[in-house]
Every structure is written in structure tokens, then in C-alpha cells.
């Protein structure tokens, strides 16, 4: 690889081993799209403890992690299996403290996004027009009403910055130094990465710096805020990577049954996480399933950035 910076490329096991510490606040972001399940599985495999997990939509990945016992607290805005139903491992802990309690701190989507924006922008809080006449602030004292300082009679609510110890994002491509390009749904990965103390980028493909420089508008995260780069194809399954593979909706439907039954969940974790060396083995074990998840091809047009030499 060309490029002036020092390579930060490493393995998933090393990245998680060195950068995710017991007790950390960890954000694995990605709104439906580009959710890095492989990183979650590695955190489970390394039996991290007492994490505070932050995500707008905890999704199946945090159900797996919380079911596996890595977390003591969850910060979120929508807790479900999208289009399917519940996250039963999370629900068992909230509803029955089974097998142990789970502390929760909840916002709305806009509130969560703005917490990352405040964290990334070094602001003490972020004002939004939300939560009016809702019970949400009554159960989350971090959401506070505030009168506009400009005496225009506007009342807003403010949310505090969220600064994860570690943010993990998945991307279609990145360089070894961490210059990262994403397309498709953007979620709040950029905000979550800039807000974090440490950043792990996992990508489908490590590419040459020239690939990034040909299309700089597509760069979401520059390498200088990235601490580790992991090339891990298919790391999002059952989530997806636009243009690389489709969302495995059948898995999300199957998870309903697995997650409902603590023993089935235990078996699943043993078979698909603890029993495997890493994600490459997971991918191989999936076998024929990939056939149904091909993305097909729809190329973007090209634009002229201009040559000003």
C-alpha cells in the first residue's frame, strides 16, 4: 500500500483486545446498514465485562452481546428487532433482571444523534425541539428543558454529549491508515467516530490511498481520528454492506426464536461465537447462505472533480 502514514491495519482480535477495555462505553453504530456484528462477536469471544453499550438501535447485535453478559448498561433510542419484534435477551434483563439487571438510559433518535454531534463538536449540550409533553424526560434526568437565551420565548430540551471510549464503525473501504469511505445509509457513524476517544474501522476492503483520493466527497472519516483498521469481509452479517451483500432478513426472523429461549441463545453463542476462532470461520460456516445475499450491480455515474495541475 502506498501512503505516507504508518499502517494501523491489524486483526479484529488485536484491535478489540487492545482498544476495548472492561468498563468502557462502546458504540458500535450503523443504522440497519453497516452494523459490525463481527466486532460484537469478538467482544463476546474475549469476554469483556461491565461495558456500557451505546447505539441508537441496539438491534440483534446488542441482544447477542447483552445476552452474552458483556454489558451492565445500555444507552439507546429504539430497542427492537427491526420489522420483526423484540430483543428478548435485553427484555429479560430489563423486565426480570434475568440473569442480572441492566441499567438503561433512553432518548429519542434525534436526541441520540445530537448527543454524538455534541460529543464530536466539543459542546456541553445540544438543544433540540423534542420531548415536549412526553414522559421521556421524566425517566431520564439527562434530558433537560431550557429557555432560549435570546428571550424569544422558545423552550428547547438539551441533551448531553456522548463521548464513547471506543466507537467501532464498519465501512465499505478504508486505507491502512484509516481513511474511510461509506456509501448507502450513513446513520450517525461519522458523528460517533469523531465523538470517540478511540476509533476502530472495520472494512470490506482495504484500498490504496489513490482510490480514496479519486473520490474525496465519499470520505466519512479521515484516518487521523482512527486508531485501528481491520479488513474483515462480510463482517456485518446479518446486517449488510450496500453494494457488497444484502441484509439477511431471514436471520433477523430466525433470531426471534433463538433470542426468546435462553438455552437456544446459549447454544447459538457457543456454536457461532465462542466455538469459532474468528469471523473468517463464521463466513465459511455460512456456506450456501451467501448465495441468496448477493448485491447485484448498480454503479453510480462518475463526476468530474477537475484537473487543476
Amino acid at each position, binding site marked *: 500500500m502506498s501512503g505516507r502514514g504508518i499502517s494501523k491495519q491489524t486483526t479484529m482480535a488485536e484491535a478489540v483486545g487492545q482498544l476495548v477495555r472492561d468498563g468502557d462505553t462502546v458504540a458500535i453504530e450503523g443504522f440497519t446498514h453497516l452494523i459490525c456484528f463481527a466486532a460484537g462477536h469478538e467482544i463476546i469471544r474475549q469476554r469483556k465485562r461491565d461495558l456500557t453499550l451505546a447505539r441508537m438501535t441496539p438491534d440483534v447485535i446488542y441482544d447477542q452481546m447483552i445476552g452474552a453478559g458483556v454489558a451492565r448498561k445500555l444507552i439507546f433510542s429504539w430497542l427492537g428487532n427491526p420489522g420483526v419484534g423484540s430483543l428478548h435477551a435485553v427484555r429479560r434483563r430489563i423486565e426480570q433482571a434475568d440473569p442480572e439487571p441492566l441499567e438503561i438510559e433512553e432518548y*429519542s*433518535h434525534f436526541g441520540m444523534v445530537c448527543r454524538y454531534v455534541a460529543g464530536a463538536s466539543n459542546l456541553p449540550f445540544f438543544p433540540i425541539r*423534542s420531548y415536549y409533553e412526553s*414522559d421521556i424526560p421524566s425517566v431520564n434526568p439527562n434530558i433537560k428543558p431550557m429557555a432560549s437565551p435570546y428571550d424569544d420565548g422558545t423552550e428547547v430540551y438539551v441533551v448531553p454529549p456522548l463521548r464513547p471510549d471506543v466507537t467501532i464503525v464498519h465501512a465499505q473501504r478504508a486505507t491502512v491508515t484509516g481513511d474511510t469511505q461509506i456509501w448507502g445509509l450513513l446513520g450517525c457513524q461519522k458523528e460517533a467516530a469523531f465523538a470517540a476517544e478511540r476509533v476502530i474501522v472495520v472494512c470490506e476492503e482495504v484500498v490504496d490511498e489513490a482510490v480514496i483520493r479519486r473520490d474525496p466527497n465519499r470520505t466519512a472519516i479521515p484516518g487521523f481520528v482512527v486508531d485501528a483498521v481491520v479488513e474483515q469481509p462480510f463482517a456485518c452479517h446479518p446486517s449488510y454492506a450496500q453494494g457488497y451483500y444484502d441484509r439477511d432478513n431471514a436471520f*433477523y426472523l430466525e433470531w426471534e426464536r433463538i433470542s426468546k429461549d435462553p438455552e437456544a441463545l446459549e447454544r447459538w453463542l457457543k456454536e457461532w461465537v465462542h466455538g469459532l476462532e474468528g469471523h473468517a470461520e463464521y463466513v465459511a460456516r455460512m456456506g450456501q447462505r451467501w448465495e441468496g445475499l448477493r448485491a447485484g450491480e448498480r454503479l453510480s455515474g462518475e463526476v468530474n472533480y477537475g484537473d487543476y495541475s
Partner: protein
Amino acid sequence: MTTRDGRDAPVSQDGYTKNEMMIAASARTLAGERVCFVGVGLPNIVCNLAQRTVSPELQLVYEAGVFGARPERLPLSIGDPTLVSGSTAVTSMFELFAFYLQAGLIDAAFLGGAQIDRFGNLNTTVIGDYAAPKVRLPGSGGACEIAIHARRILVIMRQAKRSFVEDLDFRTSPGHSGDPAHDRARGWFGSGPTSVVTDLATFGFDEETGEMTLLTVHPGVTIDDVRANMGWDPRLSGSLDETPPPTEDELRLIRTQLDPQGMYTS
């Protein structure tokens, strides 16, 4: 997944299901709207049906950060890759919520919930006590801010006594307050819920009191059926009528294009 032919869905004597009635009735409430915030599941089918029938210019906005989506398949989630391919714009979620929703550019949005009260307030957070919940529900997602900023809120929900309640266990998303002067003084872009479509009936909201008002009952449904499936005695519209059944065109679009496998409509 059962196919349309193989499923054992209850189809009425008239040849359509309760969900198909709900979807068709709901799509008609979008007539003339331009920009609609789409939710997952039934609203997704409803909005796509409206775009193909009463509202061809309808721009579909998804909270995942898509404006002007043209989904080519029915997405299971609201973050499906088909929403991106061929759309007008992909935005960050901050842009979507700040520039599109909070700035008042969304004409209509669909919400639902585990509980609704007579003023259209919605609970998607918890059944029972928040600290010791009987059932932990998903929470707000974008619903709380959507309820405040979308010009009008359309609700689509199956009707039952346990979901149409006198008192919510938790108010996630505000509807009308019951005090019209208060509602007018809020200064929100949103005018609150304007319609509720259930599997039994359609409701509007009284302009004076903001109270849910029964407008039409679906074919084969009686007012007593509607009353038996809600937690209060509803106001009745003076011109109470029967909901027009789904047209052949609506049914064809639902069955051949929008939900060919009957995942949501059976």
C-alpha cells in the same frame, strides 16, 4: 414465509383481508400529500400504495436518512438497501431529523403504538411501571419528534381494548392535549393526529376538542364491534358511514407489487 396462495389467512366473503382493508383506507388519507415520513411494516405498504394511487407525487422519506425513495421490493426494515438505490437523496440522520423534520418540511407521518388514548397520545415505551415493566416496548425511536413536527400524524393500529385505552401507561409521543387553546399555543409545526385507521374502522379528531371521533366502520363491522374493542365510548361523527371497501386496483397493487408474499397483508 407462506406464499399468498398457501396462506390460511381469513379472507372475508368479499375477497379481501382485514389488513388489506386497513391499508387501502389508510392510503386514501394520504391524498394530496407531498412529503411523507414512512414507518416500517404496514405504513410502508400504505405509503407505497398511496404513491401508486391517490398521491403519485408523494415523496417517501425514511428516518434512516433517505429522501425520495423508490423501493423496488417491500423492505422488512426501514433501513433496507432498496431504499437507497435509485433514491433522490441519502442524508445523515442528523440532517434528516434537523433539516427535514425539525424544520417543518414533512407533511404527513405514520405512527402506531402499543397504546393510544382518546386524544391520540401514543405509548411505545412500556406496559406497566417504567422502573419495573410488565412489557418493555421499543421506546421512541423518532416517534416523539415526529409527533411534534410532522404537519399531521396518521395512525394505523389494530384495534383492541388493551391498546385503545383511557389512560396510557407512558406517554412517548404527544397527541392532542384535550385543551384546544393549549394546543393552538404550542407553536409546533405539527397539528397532531388527524386520522386513525384500524382493522375495524376509521377515526378523525374533533377540531374543537381534539377527541378521536368515529368516522366510518369497515364493511361487515358494527358500531358495537368498534365499541367492544376500545377502552372508552367514542364520539360518533354526525355523518357516520361505511368505509368504502378496497377497490380491485388497490387489491391488485397490494397483492402483485407491494406484498406479494402476504407478509403484512394476510
